[in-house]
């Protein structure tokens, strides 16, 4: 069954991609809402503390965490929803993306309001976009010439040049918050800091009370254009995993996020509870400065040998209870133009042979293997597996902030022979992954990896406005990275959540149906048992 789910998801994704207009398309309006009286109370145990900045889409940091909150309190013109990657009609009942990719026009739903009863207007949309200062703000604003209010329900974005990725960036919740509409008048009145304390949005839930860092109490917004089923919704920050599981067992929480490996079995054994292993980020090995003539990783055979010796099945079993996925690509398959690639096989004999051919029959020493903090056990497993072909390495641990700082510092921060066990989950497009982790000068790759011919192809991809050419180039680039073992994919881990008995669901996919976020969503669709 576990193997079938990703296949089903992929099939749905391909269907969606096939029917989603990349340019010159229009979306269809959503059906009219049924009358539902919201009732009951639902509690979510969030796995860390709740940062107030996550409640303000204007400062979206481009990561997945704010998704969980913005999707409850706010709504976007278009958004990712279930299997739709980015253009599910939300506050906009439809939109039109010009064939030349130089403008996008949105028509707001009639009668939609914010939680304070004020109507959602094109002026709010314009303010939201122009005042937005979070992730991708520079890209969105740099390519936009002007935002025009056409009439009291219509707004148009006019671009300086063809901007094919606009709907993708604008509509993917974990990429940018520019399309998540805030009430202009209220926002200006209370200011950004005041807004974070009492955010007003147009989402399915309105905030009733906030205890900064620890708790949010929300209530169903009856003016929402879709039916909202649960009356009271409480999100509580519970950093300790064992406490979260105990809360679920006791019925104090109905949904909990992040069940660590050692507690998975406990949840599995309890027949009242349901595990929800949502496929999440991909993990891969990165060889900083592999182009240096002195680096053993300069030789493709050595990189291939590393790939052959990695025991991906064992990694998945130990680190994700077998609920992750052994994928062939380092880019998640739930983003636009991601390449499906067969999983790499383990073959230690062949790996040894390649090491011998490359002139390293007795292996060599790697100064450090550094996993993304705090996934140190994954790094230890890699080190143990590398020893089978004589590669000796030590584990380097560091605080997460220091790790990010060193990634941004470029090659000088990774002297000698090093391996980074990197991992990420980025939404939207494959290009976001490439730009972040592979492109020379990218915000995370910096100068660690500079393969000019691949970057040249990427420049062509960016300049192109022909979707077919873009897709071809995207896949060509990904193939080149994989065939040359510039990166060695390891596995795609599972973000393991759990659902309590009060929630009305036969399968966990009903609560976590989307391939675009690891969190429960859409909140308004979740029901309690009678």
């Amino acid at each position, binding site marked *: 069954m576990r193997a079938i789910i990703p296949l089903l998801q992929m099939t749905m994704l391909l269907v969606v991609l096939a029917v989603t207009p990349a340019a010159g398309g229009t979306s269809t309006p959503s059906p009219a809402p049924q009358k539902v009286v919201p009732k009951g109370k639902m509690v979510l145990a969030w796995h*860390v*503390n709740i*940062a*107030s*900045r996550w409640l303000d889409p204007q400062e*979206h*940091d*481009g*990561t997945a965490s704010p998704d969980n909150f913005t999707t409850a309190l706010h709504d976007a013109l278009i958004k990712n929803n279930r299997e739709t990657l980015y253009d599910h009609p939300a506050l906009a009942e439809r939109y039109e993306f010009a064939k030349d990719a130089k403008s996008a026009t949105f028509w707001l739903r009639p009668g939609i309001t914010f939680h304070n009863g004020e109507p959602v207007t094109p002026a709010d949309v314009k303010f939201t976009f122009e005042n937005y200062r*979070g*992730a*991708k703000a*520079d890209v969105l604003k740099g390519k936009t010439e002007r935002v025009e209010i056409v009439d009291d329900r219509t707004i148009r974005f006019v671009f300086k040049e063809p901007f094919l990725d606009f709907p993708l960036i604008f509509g993917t919740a974990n990429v940018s918050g520019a399309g998540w509409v805030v009430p202009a008048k209220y926002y200006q009145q209370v200011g*950004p*800091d005041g807004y*974070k*304390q009492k955010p007003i949005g147009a989402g399915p839930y309105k905030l009733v009370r906030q*205890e*900064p*860092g*620890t*708790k949010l109490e929300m209530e169903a917004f009856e003016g929402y254009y879709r039916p909202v089923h649960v009356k009271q919704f409480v999100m*509580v*920050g*519970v*950093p*300790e995993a*064992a*406490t979260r599981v*105990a*809360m679920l*067992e*006791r019925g*104090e929480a109905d949904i909990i996020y992040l069940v660590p490996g050692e507690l998975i079995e406990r949840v599995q054994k309890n027949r009242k509870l349901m595990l929800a292993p949502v496929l999440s980020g991909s993990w891969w090995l990165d060889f900083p400065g592999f182009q240096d003539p002195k680096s053993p990783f300069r030789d493709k055979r050595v990189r291939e040998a590393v790939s052959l010796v990695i025991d991906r099945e064992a990694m998945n079993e130990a680190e994700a209870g077998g609920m992750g996925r052994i994928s062939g690509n380092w880019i998640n398959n739930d983003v636009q133009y991601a390449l499906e690639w067969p999983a790499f096989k383990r073959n230690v004999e062949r790996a040894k042979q390649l090491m011998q051919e490359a002139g390293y029959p007795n292996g060599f020493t790697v100064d450090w293997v550094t996993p993304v903090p705090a996934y140190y056990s994954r790094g230890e497993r890699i080190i143990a597996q590398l020893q089978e072909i004589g590669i000796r390495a030590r584990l380097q641990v560091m*605080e997460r*902030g*220091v790790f*990010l*700082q060193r990634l*941004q510092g470029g090659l000088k921060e990774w002297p000698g022979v090093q391996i980074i066990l990197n991992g990420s989950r980025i939404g939207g497009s494959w290009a976001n992954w490439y730009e*972040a982790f592979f492109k020379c000068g990218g*915000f*995370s790759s910096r100068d660690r990896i500079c393969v000019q011919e691949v970057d040249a192809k990427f420049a062509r991809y960016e300049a192109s406005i022909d979707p077919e050419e873009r897709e071809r180039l995207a896949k060509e680039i990904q193939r080149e990275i994989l065939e040359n073992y510039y990166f060695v994919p390891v596995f795609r881990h599972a973000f393991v959540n759990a659902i309590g008995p009060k929630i009305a669901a036969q399968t966990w996919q009903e609560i976590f149906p989307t391939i675009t976020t690891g969190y429960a969503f859409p909140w308004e669709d979740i029901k309690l048992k009678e």
Partner: protein
Amino acid sequence: MHQFIVRRCLYSLVTIFILSLTIFTVVRLTGDPALLMAEPGARPEDLERVRMQWGLDRPWPMQYLSFMQNVITGELGKSFNYRLPVSELYLQRLPNSLQLALAATLISILVGVPAGILSAVRVNTWWDYVGTVIALLGLSIPGFWLGLVLILVFSVWLEWLPTSGTGDWRHLMMPAVALGWYFAASLLRLSRSSMLEVLRSDYIKLARLKGVPEFVVIGMHGFKNALIPVLTLAGVNLVVMVNAAVIIEVIFAWPGIGRLLYEGIFQRDFPLVQGVVVMAGFMIVGVNLLVDILYAYIDPRIRLTK
């Protein structure tokens, strides 16, 4: 006496100054908070903008002066993460921490003091051995482990108490026991040794020789005098519990000051960490100052010692 108080106040100010300087330096050694505040794709100029916005681009001495200015005005700076004055966050969490610390102190006194007195009165009997074992367990069992065991037993198996969060007395029980357990053990040891010392003193021997009943000797003469250092320790423990119950508050999702500090550390929220630590410093130094003054008032030898 006046001179003594002035001298002690000056010592306290020096202590606060050293504490503020230490915490100011130490938090900055953890790295650049701009990296955690800016979006992951932030360019160097974006990071610079964030640093400017929060005054992190200024030299450290200037930042320190701003920090001290904020301490003096009582605002304690503005949290990077919550965008609220630290004093506001602190005061929001303080009632929860006080509630927890008072309950834990009560438990520690109710368990530690009688057990300690009993151990001393029945020294080298099985009462004493039981007391020693309790003290040993209390000091050696980590709070986080005890907390998780309590949750498992009383919440999951017996279903008597809620697992976490705040609410009525039932929410308070387990975190207070988990927090107070260690302090009960330390009070037990101190009560025992203090009582033993008192029981060996001449005036107790005299009282016994005079034929004063044993319960009066212990209750009226011994217990009262043995209690002085015990209550002093209990007072200091209370202040520590208010400010440093980090692990217990995290395990029981208790929204107190300890958890606020934990959040600040993980987010490199400099003003928050600095503010919480300095407030804890003020409390501890304040209590010690008060105790010193009270001791000096009671015992003139203390204030006359140079």
